[in-house]
């Protein structure tokens, strides 16, 4: 693999880690969802980079396109669910959702 690839991959990895940390630490549901987006985009960076530097070729681009679309759809559904949560709990603090446990 060419050396330049590694720097892209590093960016992707940083995005990924940031996203994961965001998901695990944010109490606000919207913040959590943003973390998800970061993770997905970290992967997207990888795809695009790979498509450029490896035999993956155009497939990588297609991958990232699909991911972007899916991320939007998923975000829509997630936001709807957050809204629903807000309707019931009057908060979007994910820590308040702790009735279901054990």
């Amino acid at each position, binding site marked *: *693999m060419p050396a330049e690839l590694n720097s892209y991959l590093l960016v*992707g990895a940083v995005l*990924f880690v940031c*996203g*994961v940390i965001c*998901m695990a630490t944010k109490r606000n*549901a919207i913040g*959590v*969802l943003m*973390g*998800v987006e970061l*993770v*997905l985009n*970290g*992967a*997207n960076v*990888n*795809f695009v*980079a*790979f498509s450029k530097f*490896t*035999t*993956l070729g155009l*497939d*990588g681009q*297609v*991958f990232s396109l*699909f*991911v972007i679309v*899916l991320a939007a*759809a*998923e975000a829509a*559904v*997630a936001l*709807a*669910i*957050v809204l*629903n*949560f807000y*309707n*019931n*709990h009057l908060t979007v603090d*994910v820590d308040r*959702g*702790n*009735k*279901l*446990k*054990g």
Partner: protein
Amino acid sequence: MFSELLNNLIEDTLGHGLWYFSAELCLSGTIVAMLLMRLLSVDRLLPTFIVALIGAAAAGGCSFGQFADLIAAHDTMSVSFFGGMLRQDLFSVFFRVFLSLFLILTIALTVLTGIPDNEDAPDFYSMLFGATIGMMLMASANNLLMLFLGVEMASVPSYVMVGFLKGRKASSEASLKYVVYGAGAAGVMLYGISLVAGVLGTGDITLLADRLRIVAEGGNAGLGDPEVRTVALGVMLVMVGLAFKLSLVPFHFWCPDAFEGASAEVAGFLSVASKAGAFGLLVRFCVGLSGVPETAELMTAFGVGLGVIAIITTTYGNLAAYTQKNLKRLLAYSTIAHAGYMLMAVAAMLVMLNSDQAPGLGKAINYSIGGLLYYLAVYLFMNLGAFAVIALVRNYTFNEDIDSFKGLISQSPALCITMLVCIFSLIGIPPFGGFFAKLMIFASVYQAAQIHWAMYVVLAAGAINTIFSLFYYVRILKAMFLEERPADVKPVPLPAMEGYYVVVLAVMVALLGFLPQLVNGLSSIANEAGHAVLLVIGG
């Protein structure tokens, strides 16, 4: 050249692609139809569930047609279509038939229990159908992209269905947890896919092993090689996503909460269908990675690792179920445990497939996948039966706790007998289907144990867990049969239709245990399907 490409594409699509995809198309069409109906207010005249049933039946019919084609052709085939995105073989057809049948049964259950009401029905069924399409895609995925799409497609509607009881706090909480967890897992998986696809330079699952060999050619095929290491990391991250779908420990946390928050019908659907799809995907993924001698050692280790995860999952599921009072939650843990049992089959398959004796073990490997499929088939009926009973009882007692089942035998024997059969089958006691399924899995684990000693541990864990599981299952039986019905619990007067419904499920569970035609037929088809999925690596 472009026209040639286009022509090929059109031929590929129209020639067989559309037929192969007909079940999914039927479902998609039904979704559109249902949504249109509400738009046009036709749903006041024609209840939505009828359209849904027709759609599901059509999908079932198409799947069955494909199935009949395959059986009639007598030769095992495996072709990719839609530009290599999906794969058509007996394995995927098996899942289509399986999922359509399950869809029909679920719709019937929702009709009987009255969830959802007429207003929400198109939405609900759309979600249901969407999720089913996703699961079918998972089972026939031939590309890492389809792997991700399938998972997402199955997951996203599921998030909504879990939160479908809109006014309920628990429901919204469950769906929030599910969506966040699911999204997180999907993200992790996607990152893993990017690594795998990138390093190996292809998205085609069937090529993975070959590419891995090429990648590893320079150095050794161990983890010392940085590229192999990256692939291994990627595979592991993909596994995290699948583990989430399969609710394997330690990625199972969503499962009890989501099941408790969701209605029993949805929980039943999720417990069986999404698991089925995920297992289909897992098998394809694992097969795609296998079959190359250079990586055999690595993949055997992977198989053993899956076996360890299976042990942990089963044990965890069974133990955690002990103290549950909410039946849905209890069954959620039971689902986790059963995922562990089924994972044992995959582990066994991996170990056998990557041993140097693999050519001699052909049948055994088929049978390990066959056992998994058989298990899924039986699991469909027994788990759905159990959830159906819970849903029906809930409709009268407005309660899903084990206490509301006390002394139920005095009021509705049909429900109790069904529950009894399902539970005995879940424990794995003959002559019910669950026993046969479990036997097949143990058998393949035993055979794998001839190759790698660690599988003996898996076998022992499976055996011990059978006994662990006894306690909490029997608690349900005890409540239903051995205790008096408390005075303050509302009676459960069961209408005939509902009784028939559950009894049919119970009868199926029982017949899958000893009716020779059924057991023979299903197990041989399952084995054939197991064979079919291996065709891509020349198995």
